[in-house]
């Protein structure tokens, strides 16, 4: 049975005035909550390989037996292709994968997708780290 697992984890900070060259089209923190990491295994039902964000849709069977529908958001196609992905090859509708990310603030089954574990155990990033694009907490 596929399970829903949540793991609480802290994100290491970045040294002041050294800026990590990871770019996001929009702020992570507006929609997603870094205190709500989530790991989910399920079956892919649809893939949007699009700008400015790609999406993976999944069905996840919960412990109760109920099937939950999830949506995950990540890098655009150009970045995916440079980080080890190939459209229509690396993942396809019907594949079973495990994903790690951070849930939406509104509590819906929507999450920022950071890492995918494929059926063969290979790991790939599908999106940037948590916090990207927010600009930090203090204007400096």
């Amino acid at each position, binding site marked *: 049975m596929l399970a829903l697992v949540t793991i609480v984890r802290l994100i290491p900070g970045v040294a002041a005035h050294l800026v990590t060259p*990871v770019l996001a089209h929009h702020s992570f923190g507006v929609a997603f909550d870094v205190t709500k990491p989530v790991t989910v295994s399920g079956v892919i039902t649809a893939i949007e390989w699009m700008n400015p*964000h790609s999406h993976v849709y999944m069905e996840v069977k919960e412990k109760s037996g109920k099937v939950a529908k999830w949506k995950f958001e990540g890098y655009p196609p150009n970045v995916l292709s440079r980080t080890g992905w190939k459209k229509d090859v690396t993942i396809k509708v019907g594949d079973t994968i495990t994903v790690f990310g951070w849930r939406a603030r509104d509590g819906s089954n929507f999450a920022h997708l950071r890492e995918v574990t494929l059926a063969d155990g290979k*790991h790939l990033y599908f999106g940037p780290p948590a916090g990207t694009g927010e600009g930090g907490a203090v*204007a400096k």
Partner: protein
Amino acid sequence: MRTAGRVVGATLLAACVASACSTTREAPAQTGSAPRAQDGKPDLTGVYQTSARRGDWDFDVPGEEPGVPAARPAGTIAAVQRDPVPYQDWARVKAQEYLDRRSIDDPAAYCRPQSSPRMTPTGLFPIQFIQTPQQVAILYEYFWLFRVIPTDGRGHADDVDPSFMGDSVGRWDGDTLVVDVTNFKDGGWLAPGVFHSDALHLTERYTRVDHDQLNYEATVEDSKVFTAPWKIRVTLMLREKNRLREYSCMENNVDMQRYQEFVKNPSLFVRKPEGAR
């Protein structure tokens, strides 16, 4: 799963080493002098990525913990350094408001073009330089933007309206291309929360210090927002096997609709004072 992850991580590491993956080893310190154009000027032509590492395309691979990159040697230089921003008092308050709203107001989220200091350190999106004796073109994959910078001695155009990326003119100062940029639209962002006005003035310096490395330094001035000039420094590395690809920000930008809903309920996302994320 984590045991499997360690095995996979070791496999990836081995694969990267075998294929000279730049993410898992230090690149050589020097790789030859900067090439010269026929006119004797340094030739900036090439595709570059913001990075502290030489070699092939640079990106992170997952490590032992979910979402955390595999360890790799630190770069010998910082890829991006930014001075503290000397905001005027009112502007610091405004910038803090933007950050407290977690940059929901970022014009980039609405696919609006942004100016150079922001578009240069774009990490996973490369930029390309094309140089002739009369001009230098800079192509930005991110947002699919370009600039054409005359280097033939002409001054700023006097017949163009303010624009997102401003009006650029270049000149050579020894082996450094110096670009003066003015005539901006009001309201762009130089980084998340760091906004500028129509008084923005940039002095950019591009120096190809050797075959691989192109240093970028921008001096930022804006008499309406900042109290003094400040700088951002970026290291770009040549990526000879890479090329720019199409990026259409508006293809499926659902964020605009999503944000319109969010702003109706700021308590959902606005940063709370002490102890809140």
